[in-house]
C-alpha cells in the first residue's frame, strides 16, 4: 500500500509571484494563453485545459476602507470522496492509492459529466483533444520521487508536498502560529469530501478565498432526485389510465359495449 501523499498550500505564505503557474505550464508543456487585462493581476482569468493551476487574486475591502490583497492557488484538490471519478461513465477518472485523482487521457470520451459535477469547478473540457483535463499533481514526477513542479518552484515554502500525515502535522503547527498572531486559521481539506490531497491552510474564512465553506457533492441524496421524478410520473400515468378507463366505460355505456 502506497503512502497517502498530499500537497499543503499555506496561503499565509503566498506572495502571489505565480512561479507555480509558470512551473506547471513548463513541466506539463502547456501553451500560454492570450488574455486581456480585466483590472486584476489574476491571469489567465480562470483555469482552463492549458492552465491547471492559477493564483487567484482577491481584493476585499476592510471595515476602514483599506483594501487587502489575498492570494489563493487554485488547482484540483484531489478529494478522497472524488465525485468526478464517481460520475465518470467511462472509468477514465481514477483515484490512485496515493490519493491522486487522475484522468486517463486515453480513455476519456469527453462527456463532460465531471465538469458539471465538481464542486470546485476544476476539470475543463479541451476542444482540441476532445477530452477533459486537470491537475494530476505531476504524477510522472511523483512516481519518480520528485515533488510536483509547482511545489518545487515555490520560493516561499507556501507549497509543500509529502506524506499526508506529515503535511497535516506541518499544517497544525502553522495553524497554531497563525492563531497566536490573531488569525482564525482553518485547515481546509483535512476532512472536506473525505479528506483532500491538496489541503489549504487558510488564515480566515474559506468563502473569502472563493471556496465553499462546506463543500458538498452534488450527487448527495441523488435517490431523492430520482424519486421526485418517478413518483409524480407514476401518479400522472395512473391519472391518465383512470381518465381513459372512465372515457371507455362512458362510451361503452353509450354504445352498449363493443
Amino acid at each position, binding site marked *: 500500500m502506497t503512502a497517502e501523499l498530499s500537497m499543503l498550500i499555506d496561503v499565509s505564505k503566498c506572495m502571489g509571484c505565480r512561479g507555480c503557474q509558470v512551473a506547471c505550464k513548463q513541466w506539463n508543456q502547456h501553451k500560454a494563453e492570450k488574455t486581456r487585462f480585466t483590472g486584476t493581476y489574476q491571469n489567465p482569468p480562470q483555469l482552463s485545459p492549458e492552465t491547471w493551476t492559477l493564483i487567484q487574486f482577491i481584493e476585499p475591502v476592510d471595515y476602514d476602507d483599506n483594501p487587502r490583497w489575498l492570494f489563493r492557488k487554485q488547482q484540483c484538490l484531489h478529494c478522497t470522496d472524488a465525485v468526478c471519478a*464517481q*460520475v*465518470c*461513465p*467511462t*472509468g*477514465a477518472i*481514477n483515484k*490512485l492509492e496515493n490519493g491522486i485523482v*487522475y484522468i*486517463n487521457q486515453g*480513455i*476519456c*470520451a*469527453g*462527456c*463532460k*459529466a465531471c*465538469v*458539471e*459535477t*465538481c*464542486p470546485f*469547478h476544476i476539470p475543463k*473540457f*479541451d*476542444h482540441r*483533444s*476532445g*477530452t*477533459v483535463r486537470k491537475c494530476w499533481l505531476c504524477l510522472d514526477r511523483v512516481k519518480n520521487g520528485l515533488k510536483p513542479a509547482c511545489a518545487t518552484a515555490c520560493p516561499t515554502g507556501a507549497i509543500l508536498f509529502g506524506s499526508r500525515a506529515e503535511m497535516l502535522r506541518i499544517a497544525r503547527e502553522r495553524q497554531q502560529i497563525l492563531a497566536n498572531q490573531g488569525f482564525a486559521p482553518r485547515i481546509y481539506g483535512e476532512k472536506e469530501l473525505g479528506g483532500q490531497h491538496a489541503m489549504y491552510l487558510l488564515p480566515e474564512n474559506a468563502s473569502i478565498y472563493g471556496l465553499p465553506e462546506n463543500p458538498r457533492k*452534488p*450527487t448527495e441524496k*441523488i435517490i*431523492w*432526485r*430520482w424519486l*421526485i*421524478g*418517478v413518483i*409524480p*410520473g*407514476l401518479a*400522472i*400515468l395512473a*391519472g*391518465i*389510465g*383512470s*381518465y*381513459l*378507463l372512465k*372515457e*371507455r366505460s362512458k*362510451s361503452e355505456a353509450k354504445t352498449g359495449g*363493443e
Partner: protein
Amino acid sequence: MEHYVWGAPVAIDLFTAGLGAAIFMVAVVANLAGGRKYRRISTAGALIAPWPVILGVVLLIIDLGRPGRFWEMILKRAQELNHLESPFIMFKIGSTMSIGIWLVVVFIILSFVYLIVALLAYPFKWAEIFQKVVGVVGIPFALLVTTYTGVLIAASNNVIWNNWLLPVVFVSSAIVAGIAAIVFILAVLQICKPESEIGSDVPKLEILNSRVIAFQLIMVILFIVFGIGSASMRAIIGSAFGLLWWVGVIFLGLVVPLIIGFKGGAKSPHTSLVVSTMVLLGGFYLRYIILIGGQI
C-alpha cells in the same frame, strides 16, 4: 462564439429521450386501459416511441469530445491505472450518465419489441397479451429514462439545474409532449385521410393533456419560485431568453393548449396539429433554456 459545456445537442437529447419514453408510457397505459378501443393511440405511440430516443443517443455521441470512444461507456477494458475486476461491462452505479446509458439501451430494445408486438396485435388477437406484458415490463424503464434526463443535470454544480423540482418538471413536461406527439401523428393521419375516423381520439387526448399541463404549469411556477434567489434564474426569465420562455414555453406551449383542452379540445385536426406542434416546441425550449441559460 461562446462554448457551452453542454450545448444544443444535449438539449435536444434531454427533450427527445424524455419524449420517446413518454410516448411509450402513454401508448402502454392506453393499451392497458382500453385494449382495442384505444388501439389508434397505442399503435401510433408504439410506432413512434423508439425513434426520438435513438436520435437522442446519436446526438449524445456526437456531443462527446471523442465520439469514437463511446464504447468506453459500454465495455470495460484492461487499464494500466484502473484496478477494476470485471473485464466486460462498463457500468457504474454512482454515475448518473452510466445508469442513463444502460436505461436507454434497454428501453430502445424493449420499445422495438413493443413496436413489433403492437403491429402483430393489430391482426392477431393472441399477440395482445404479449403487447400488454412487454408494455408493463417497459414502463419502469421508460419512466426511469424520462427521470434520468432531469436527474443528470439536477445532480450538478450548476445553480439553475441543481433545483429539487427539476426532475418533476422534466417528467411532467415529457408526458405532456408525449401526448402531444400522439395527437400530432393522429391529426396528420386524419388530415391525410379526411373520411376516416383515425383522429376520433384526438379531443379526448387534448382534454387529458390539459390536466397534465395544469400540473406541469404548477411545477414550472414552483421551479421558478424555488430558483428565483439565483442571479442566473433572474437572467433566464428577464433576458433575451425571457421572451422565448414566457411566450414560447409558458404561453404558447402550456397556457394555450391548457385552455383548448379545458374547452373540450380543438375543433379541427388542423388546429390540433398547430397546438400539438406548439406543445412540442415548448417542451424542447423548456429544456433548451434551462440547459443553456443555466450556463450563462
